[in-house]
């Protein structure tokens, strides 16, 4: 029999500290669905995805019930549509997005991610068509997520693509102005995109993966916060090294839960298990916040001086704990700081502790980037491109993944309130320097070259 503290701590994690399996994401390779004929292609998509995903939701629910831990979201990631559907034009890409949306409804998943293109070094016809299609595709669908990789440490940053993405973000936001620009909340721009992320909106299935794979995203910022609180309560003079150790051990336990669930789903569906992505991904629920961890660590608020150091420690400890727990850790794995999805982070923005510059600094040490940041609707394309380029540069130089999920909220300005709903939460719009201004730097276009340390051979 387990000892008392083991029993209690496990029950508390699952029942009171918001530990959940945030997503089980079925990755499906679509290269064998390729066709030059749109109707054949759409039929192939439907046939393959419904065959593989038909029992996904039911299986996740049954296994979640068995272990008393909710699988909150069941999702699908697919091969990048910009590649698989390369023969098609933008209008046809929108049709494909709508078909994927119908399939998502049919199999009961929350999202399908992978309406994606990889353009870090240049854009092919299919990539251009996809990028052009993104605003309409994300407006006319509810369950499709898009991502475009515009930079990498090996290739540099494709500034032409950055500018196109700024345009796409603005356009998508405008088309969904009645929902505060919701389309932009389903679109990520990446540098060094991982090919096995189970979280949305950045999930897609990269090349080199199996025909189908189960990836798991497990989260639990509340569990980490409570572990820190208990430790400091027991010993107020605890050093940061010891606190990092506690975070690491907690992350290990959380990852083990995710792997248990993921492997059992994979075994039941007879699909290979891929990775566990241990990311502290908050939700707009009290007690499920990354921002609150900063307060537990002694900061008045996330964003106060010391926050970048705290986040560096947190992100690193989470990765170490996850790496010990499983030999198949992947995706983003670390700590997210999505503004609208975390009540505490949103409050920090509202109270002036966090601005876009501080957020950008913190993205140097977190596992994602500028995530779910609401900015003024009249932010110019060039300024938006500049913000994206800055974030991409952090990723490129530091050989890490960075991303932007920015929402220019139509008709609203700094200090106004944007509401996206559900897990996407709500946010105060934060100020952007040179908001409506020009930016000749980004207009140069071309490619920022890869850094010297990319020459690793």
């Amino acid at each position, binding site marked *: 029999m387990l000892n008392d503290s083991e029993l209690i701590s496990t029950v508390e994690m699952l029942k009171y500290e918001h530990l959940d399996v945030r997503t089980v994401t079925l990755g499906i390779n679509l290269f064998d669905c390729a066709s030059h004929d749109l109707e054949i292609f759409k039929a192939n998509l439907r046939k393959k995805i419904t065959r593989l995903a038909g029992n996904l939701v039911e299986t996740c629910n049954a296994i979640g019930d068995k*272990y008393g831990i909710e699988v909150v979201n069941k999702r699908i990631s697919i091969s990048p549509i910009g590649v698989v559907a390369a023969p098609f034009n933008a209008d046809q890409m929108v049709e494909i997005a709508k078909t994927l949306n119908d399939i998502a409804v049919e199999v009961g998943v929350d999202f399908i991610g992978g309406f994606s293109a990889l353009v870090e070094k240049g854009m092919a016809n299919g990539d251009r068509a996809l990028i052009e299609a993104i605003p309409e595709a994300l407006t006319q669908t509810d369950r499709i997520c898009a991502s475009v990789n515009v930079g990498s440490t090996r290739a540099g940053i494709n500034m032409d693509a950055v500018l196109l993405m700024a345009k796409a973000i603005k356009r998508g936001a405008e088309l969904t102005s009645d929902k505060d620009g919701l389309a932009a909340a389903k679109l990520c721009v990446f540098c060094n995109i991982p090919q096995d992320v189970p979280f949305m909106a950045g999930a897609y299935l990269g090349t080199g993966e199996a025909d189908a794979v189960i990836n798991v995203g497990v989260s639990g910022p509340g569990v980490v916060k409570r572990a820190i609180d208990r430790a400091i309560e027991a010993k107020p003079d605890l050093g940061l090294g010891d606190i990092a150790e506690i975070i690491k051990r907690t992350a290990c336990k959380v990852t083990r839960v995710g792997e248990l669930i993921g492997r059992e789903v994979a075994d039941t569906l007879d699909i290979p298990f891929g990775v566990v992505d241990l990311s502290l991904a908050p939700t707009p629920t009290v007690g499920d916040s990354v921002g609150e961890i900063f307060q537990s660590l002694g900061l008045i608020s996330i964003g106060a001086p010391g926050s970048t150091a705290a986040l560096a420690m947190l992100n690193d400890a989470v990765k170490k704990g996850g790496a010990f727990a499983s030999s198949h850790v992947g995706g983003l794995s670390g700590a997210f700081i999505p503004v609208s999805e975390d009540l505490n982070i949103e409050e920090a923005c509202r109270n002036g502790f966090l601005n876009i510059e501080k957020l950008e600094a913190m993205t140097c040490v977190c596992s994602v980037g500028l995530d779910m940041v609401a900015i003024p609707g009249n932010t110019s394309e060039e300024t938006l491109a500049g913000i994206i380029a800055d974030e991409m540069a952090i990723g490129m130089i530091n050989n890490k993944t960075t991303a932007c999920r920015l929402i220019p909220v139509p008709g609203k300005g700094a200090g106004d309130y944007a509401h996206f709903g559900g897990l996407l939460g709500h946010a105060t719009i934060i100020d952007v320097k040179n908001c409506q201004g020009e930016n000749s730097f980004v207009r140069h276009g071309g490619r920022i070259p890869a850094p010297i340390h990319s020459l690793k051979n």
Partner: protein
Amino acid sequence: MSKIIITAIGKDRPGIVSSVAGVLYQLGCNIENVSQTILQSEFAGIYIVSTPEGTDFETFSEQFHGTFDEKGLHVHIEPMALEDTQEPSGEHFIITTIGPDSRGLVYDISTVIAEAGVNIINLKAVFEGGDNPERNIMVYEVLVPDTVDRHILSGTLKEKATSLNLALTFQHKNIFDTVNRI
């Protein structure tokens, strides 16, 4: 006769296990399995013992009681039936109830478990801090046969728990092992 079961219950003190084991050794027996627990100041131990070839139960029982210095222990001996050694097919789950202690709580929950044809194989009470009566925890490790509908059992348990003002969890044991064991 192949095996016997010896149950010893009484005031805990040093030397109980060695005295039982000593007598069994003298009588030529082998302890095949043993489980013991101490609850506050009370000892309880169960021994599954194989006896020498040709020993009959009555003779053994007489010899044991004659040799063992019981010193306040209650000792019960009985033969073990062959089917007792076979565990039914099923999976181990952990049920916890969390909330204020009340008279009949264990009876109510264990009756639901029994009526479903499920066996409780381990039971312990965990009190998380004496000044928080809301957080008394009972832990039941149960073996749920494959023939039992777990969803119906879970629903009935949760209904009963709600009526007793308790929170209840019902989870496969693997998750506890996975989280706490490397």
